[in-house]
């Protein structure tokens, strides 16, 4: 099924890009693979990185015998002001707007905040990386 393999490829690309963006620094194939908790094979990660580089999403520079991949500099098409925040303000502000953006999380009520802190079994801690 070409559709399902295309979907799988899209998911791989998203995971790899998200991993690099979260790290905030260039990473080698091995580092990305480790960053994804070794869920993917080395060759899969390498293929995906190469494809993203070809698309212009990533830049790469030699690092020892391998390449280190990083996020491409802000694309020319995106004005510097167009941050996620700016886009949200543009599209999702005011009570009269149709609110076309579907946010992952909306703002919390104090009750929500209490429930969520309890769920994570932590207090005032929001740093990623650890597993509870």
């Amino acid at each position, binding site marked *: 099924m070409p559709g399902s393999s295309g979907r799988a490829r899209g998911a791989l690309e*998203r995971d790899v890009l998200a991993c690099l*963006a979260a790290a905030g620094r260039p990473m080698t194939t091995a580092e990305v693979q480790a960053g994804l908790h070794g869920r993917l094979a080395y060759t899969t990660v390498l293929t995906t990185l190469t494809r993203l580089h070809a698309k*212009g999403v990533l830049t790469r520079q030699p690092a020892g015998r391998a390449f280190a991949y990083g996020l491409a500099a802000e694309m020319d098409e995106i004005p510097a002001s167009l941050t996620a925040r700016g886009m949200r303000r543009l599209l999702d502000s005011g009570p009269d707007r149709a609110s*076309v953006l579907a946010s992952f999380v909306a703002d919390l009520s104090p009750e929500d905040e209490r429930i969520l802190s309890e769920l994570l079994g932590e207090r*005032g801690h929001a740093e990623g990386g650890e597993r509870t």
Partner: protein
Amino acid sequence: MTPAMWAPILAAVVLAPAGSRLGRRLPPSVSVPLLTLAALATAVATGFVLAVAAFDAMAMLGPVAALGHWSVASVRPGGTVSIMLDVAAGLIVGVLLAAAVRRATRIGVDIGHAVATCRRLGPDAGGLVVLRDDEPDAFALPGVRGRVVVSTGMLRMLPPDERRVLLAHERAHLAHGHQIYVQLAGLAAAANPLLRPLAREVERGVERWADEVAAAEVGDRRLAARAVARAGLARARSPVDSRPGLALHAAAERGGVGARAMALLQPPPRRRRWPAVALIAVTLVAIGGAALTGSTTEDRFERAQADYTLAR
């Protein structure tokens, strides 16, 4: 107004509190389409019967009756109270129609903005666009090829497996056309304010729907709940906050992030038959009332025209 004309209005009154309650007893992938359909059908049916009532009031006017060749006396039996109701219906339908048109225009403009923004976003990885921004934020941007937009601030907050939940959730919004349901239900609520609770339930429902898709995709409901919780807290505790207060309140109300996380800790919702049947039944009452109104009105005017011809 005839009894059949009250049916769609009654359906809207019943749906306002009952629709949300019935919807929550169904899996979101079932409740969202059903609630949207119920809202749309009820809004259209209400508008139709109000327009017919308004037409009745107009038909009583001498010049209009002469133009339509019908006898004023036989257009409709009924006293002054009924005429007053019809005039009121005319005013209401005018206001509601204007609200619906305004809303539809607003939706068109905002979707246009979103589509144009999508096109300007440059290269993406499987539909994902990362923006350098320290404020944790993530959303689905609808478009011809919709994009998932996530800030680096949000990605840094989540461990790798929770990032997968976030990405799967936003992809689900785009893949299942959630925006279409939200906008149609919003339009219905603009055309009939009684349906506002239904539109809010659809907004809540699509978030639950995307949560369920994401949980199924990562195969771990607890993990999905943790991702929602961590992202929610990260956003709430973000020092950067430039959002206007009003939008913030609205979002907190419709989000229910805590309830979403709790729902993910429960087993997946079961498919029940009766809440769906109840929703469909109320929708059919609204449609039936409008259909009956249409056919009896047609008969009435045919008779009135026959009487007009006879009188001459």
